[in-house]
């Protein structure tokens, strides 16, 4: 298993997991989120091929209410 930091918390994943696998685990269809891995924005067409590595810092962001 590998351990990544997801939104500031530790998350374990099978080795070779892509960003889309992480989305499945957290229950997001990916349509309404932005994903940043180690400060790099991962666009939707790259999510299935971008493999996560041990110690990656992943931010998954949504739009919430704000003024």
């Amino acid at each position, binding site marked *: 298993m590998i351990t990544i930091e997801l*939104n*500031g918390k530790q998350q374990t994943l099978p080795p070779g997991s892509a960003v889309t696998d992480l989305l499945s685990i*957290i*229950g*997001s269809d990916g*349509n*309404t*989120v*932005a994903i*940043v891995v180690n*400060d790099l*924005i991962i*666009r939707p067409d790259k999510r299935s091929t971008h493999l996560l590595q041990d110690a990656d810092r992943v*931010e*998954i*962001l*949504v*739009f*919430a*209410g*704000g*003024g």
Partner: protein
Amino acid sequence: MDFLQLGSYTFSSRLILGTGKFSNTTVMLEAVKASGAQLVTVALRRFNREQLADDLFSPLKALPEVTLMPNTSGASTAAEAVRAAHIARELSGSPFIKVEIHPNPQHLMPDPIETYEACRILAKEGFFVMPYIAADPVLAKRLEEIGCTSVMPLGSAIGSGQGLATAEMINIIIRESNIPVIVDAGLRSPSEATLAMEMGCGAVLVNSAVAVSEHPPEMAEAFAEAVAAGRKAFKAGLMPKSSSAIATSPLTAFLGVNT
């Protein structure tokens, strides 16, 4: 028609609505519809599987008239704001970004130096940059010069409901500006929105005044009418002020009284 031009976008509504602090998403959506707002602000937050209802992207995207203007709230430096803007554009597909950099959560006053730097970078990158600023005419002019689409001076502190405390400074900004001036923050009542528009603001941005009112959709509609009335009055041209009375009725030839 009298349109608000922001970048390459034109809007018939001059009321911009924030989406924070509503009791729930349904009420927020009703308020957006009632307001007629075509530009609404949103904030970036971390995904939380326990709070999926907080994700506003889909419900707002379902409103065909609405364009999203993400903000950079939470950023305390220019670098953080630029990063947030990039992420927000990726998600929203909107060229608009409200640059909001306030390092002190007690007063939420915008940092002029970090704001200027973030705006400089984002304007060069082609964003339609809408900075939230103190009502500082010099800063406003500098931001216009580096390509900001609008400047958004605060009427008073965010969420304070203290109205147009900075009215005189905003008047100067309006006189000096060649881009729309949008009062952002502090408005409490529709009459204050009318006053801002009568002064010559291009639009007003309202959030708390609607969101924490007892009936947000009704208050949103009231603000929409107030903004439209103020704009119409501005276009019609207010009468000049006089320090003495000027009669509206004839004062001569009255009941045989000779003057």
